[in-house]
């Protein structure tokens, strides 16, 4: 056994995030960990990586007991981790981000040219393309994810922890990543893979450990299981199939006409985009991240201004208006990045949940705290958000639970138009089912939804029409019936049908 974690317990105050977990990893194995949001997956990995100290339990590496006081020790022990949330230096170049900690150069000098070369070689070796000279903050999330993985590979890790690595990747990128994992494991590297996507897990994992409420509920070999069994182990029940009713679309709730944004390097970021969303209709937007989706959403919601073109929400021209005014005209928005746009980490769960509702739930300028409390605790129940209390600081929610809170908040704005950007990013399959159900319910109630997702299955499952974005343009439009993964994939890559 390469790695053996025995009886790991981690307590935060009175709350136990891990309760007596046993976990093992063989050399060259891909071992997946699955489980509901807040089950304690990330916590377990942070313990292994030396970022948290276990309350009790032991870790053995190659049979020798180890205890990592810091990631430095773990890295030296040959463990690398790709975190659920990026650990990058946004203003640095990609090459710098990869080589940090073990920079090339003679003596004290940092040889940046050599770093670029090294990274190029690394890309070659593992078949992952990045531009070493590009600045991280202006790279697409998919690229940033690759940087994270390359960084770990560069560190020469033998055990590689991947915490929800595919959350931001497009299907093609996912495929590439899974291939790379398989290749590397053949070369002798071992992987711990955390994912909510059971198909990926079943594709690459040799073994699967299922966690629930901080404890192991099962360890299964790949051959002996299927998605149904896994999901039962995870959520403790069967998942129902969604049924999508047919609805005749009504009024236009969103009309984007000829919207353009100039880019910095000649190429426009958005190039004459036209989109219409009608009441009771889900319009999906597919595309490889970095093709203008983020900017499109920012322009629609007033977070950025277009250089030309017009935008109307519920028939009203809202071009140039502030976010507040656009929201008042009938927009709700599940943001693509929950920490940047979706939450205030230092605020309480209640305060984070209140945003957008606060102008409604007031009397004479004062908040109606009772109403607010019952509203938010309603969401906590409905979406089974795991939180200590409503007064818990938002930063202590696990990624998926925060996502659910944000989704609940925006769904409840009750507007005729909703932007849902990556609505199920990082949530477990049970929660995904709930969120999908709620989105379809809103559709039936006559809300128009613009769904942006890198998850093609999600797009195909929910959309009435699908638009594909490529290089700032709408490269194609397909009806729900016509759309298939293959066709979308072709359009997304810049091809034509």
């Amino acid at each position, binding site marked *: 056994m390469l790695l053996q974690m025995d009886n790991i317990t981690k307590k935060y105050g009175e709350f136990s995030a891990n309760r007596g977990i046993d976990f093992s990893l063989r050399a060259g194995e891909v071992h997946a960990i699955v489980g509901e949001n807040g089950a304690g997956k990330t916590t377990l990995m942070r313990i292994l990586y030396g970022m948290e100290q276990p309350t009790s339990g032991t870790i053995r590496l190659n049979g020798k007991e180890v205890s990592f006081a810091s990631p430095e020790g773990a890295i030296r022990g040959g463990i690398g981790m790709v975190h659920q949330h990026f650990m990058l230096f*946004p203003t640095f170049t990609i090459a710098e981000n990869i080589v940090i900690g073990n920079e090339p150069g003679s003596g004290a000098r940092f040889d940046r040219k050599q770093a670029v070369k090294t990274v190029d070689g690394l890309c070659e070796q593992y078949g992952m393309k990045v531009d070493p000279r590009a600045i991280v903050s202006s790279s697409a999330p998919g690229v940033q994810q690759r940087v994270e993985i390359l960084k770990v590979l560069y560190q020469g890790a033998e055990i590689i922890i991947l915490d*929800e690595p595919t959350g931001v990747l497009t299907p093609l990128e996912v495929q590439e990543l899974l291939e790379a994992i398989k290749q590397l494991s053949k070369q002798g590297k071992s992987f711990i893979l955390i994912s909510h996507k059971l198909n990926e897990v079943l594709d690459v994992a040799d073994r699967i450990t299922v966690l629930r409420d901080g404890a192991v509920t099962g360890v299964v070999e790949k051959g002996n299981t299927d998605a149904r069994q896994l999901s039962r182990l995870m959520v403790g029940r069967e998942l129902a199939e969604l049924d999508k009713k047919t609805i005749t679309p009504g009024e236009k709730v969103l009309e984007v006409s000829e919207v353009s944004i100039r880019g910095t390097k000649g190429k426009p970021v958005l190039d004459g985009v036209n989109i219409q969303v009608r009441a009771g209709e889900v319009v999906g937007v597919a595309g490889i991240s970095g093709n203008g989706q983020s900017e499109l959403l920012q322009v629609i919601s007033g977070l950025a201004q277009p250089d030309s073109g017009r935008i109307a929400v519920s028939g009203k021209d809202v071009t140039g208006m502030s976010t507040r005014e656009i929201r008042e005209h009938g927009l709700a928005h599940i943001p693509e990045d929950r920490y940047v746009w*979706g939450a205030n980490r230092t*605020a309480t769960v209640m305060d984070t949940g209140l945003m957008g509702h606060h102008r409604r739930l007031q009397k004479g300028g004062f908040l109606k705290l009772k109403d607010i409390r019952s509203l938010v605790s309603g969401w906590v129940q409905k979406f089974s958000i795991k939180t200590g209390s409503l007064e818990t600081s938002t930063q202590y929610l696990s990624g998926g639970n925060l996502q659910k809170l944000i989704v609940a908040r925006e769904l409840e704005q009750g507007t005729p138009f909703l932007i849902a950007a990556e609505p199920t990013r990082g949530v477990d399959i049970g929660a995904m089912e709930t969120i999908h159900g709620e989105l379809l319910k809103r559709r039936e109630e006559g809300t128009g939804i613009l769904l942006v997702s890198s998850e093609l299955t999600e797009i195909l499952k929910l959309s009435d029409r699908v638009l594909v974005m490529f290089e700032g343009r709408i490269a194609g439009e397909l009806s729900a019936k016509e759309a298939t993964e293959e066709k979308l994939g072709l359009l997304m890559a810049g091809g034509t049908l």
Partner: protein
Amino acid sequence: MNKWTKLTLPLLQPIAAIMVGLLAGAIAIMIAGGDILETYAEMWKGAFGGMYFFTNTLSRATPIILIGLGAAFAFRAGFFNLGAEGQMVFGALSAALVGLYMPGPGWLVCIVAIIAGIVAGGLWSVMAGYFDARFRVNLLISTLLLNYVAVLFAGYLVAYPLKDRSGSAAMAQSEMLDNSVWLPKLISGMPLHVGFVLAVLAALIIFVLLKRSVIGYEVRMLGGNPLFALFGGVKRGPMMLGAMFFSGGLAGLGGAVEILGSQYRYIDGALSTADYAWTGIMAALLAGSHPIGTLIASIFLAALQTGGMGVERNTEVPLEVGAIIQAVLILFISARFTYSFLKRRKGNKSDGTAV
């Protein structure tokens, strides 16, 4: 953890800090060759020993509280306003001018003078806010620099056009206000004036405002994560101007009541030497920008100062050692006791973007 320990635990830390601070101060006293117990006794007496000293401490705390509250409010909204000194100077100057030159009954002049102080401090502050919101001029630098400009400008006015020529005319100061304009004392014969009541009221109002009101909510969210606030429809520009006005207005009020309640004229340098501005900012930071905490921290800091004066008057421990003890006490109390704005910011900063 039972309720009892939950209640006492947060108190334990500051009490322990004060204890350690006193111990460190004792070493300083010993080195200076003073009597430790006597020195601390005099320090206590200078701050709280008797009605006169107690009210004097509160009176000294008054401008500190108001400035601290102003700073705390701006910090809460995420705007690092370090311009309290200039804002206070303008508030004080305007109050003095209104008090001197406005005709009418004393009480009315006094009220108008207070309002003028708030408005002047607020406008001076909002100017920096506007530069930031409109032209992206770094608020931290501009507020810091505008202090110098304000102090010099006010200094010019009272050294030349508005100089007091009634007395020895040796000072750069305005004439003295007529005593009909003075803020009434709370207890006759004691230094404490109505300004203190205003300060306590302001603390309570801000406390409720932040906790319960829509504006307060938006302020807190803006301070926590401006992008989230923007996303939710909080308008940063107007909020910034509003918060800066409010913050500077409080500092201006601090200056105004100091003039109308204590000094009765604008004296060049008097507000700067007393270091009200930095003390107020320190109070806000010590209290993690909590309004009631700021109130308490301000009184504590004022007590350290008045206590230090007591030590200077009644013992052989030199003035400097008093200052050293004060500084040491503050250092120890700041340790871990604070839930600070900057630390919080550092914490946020460290998490990178989300997947």
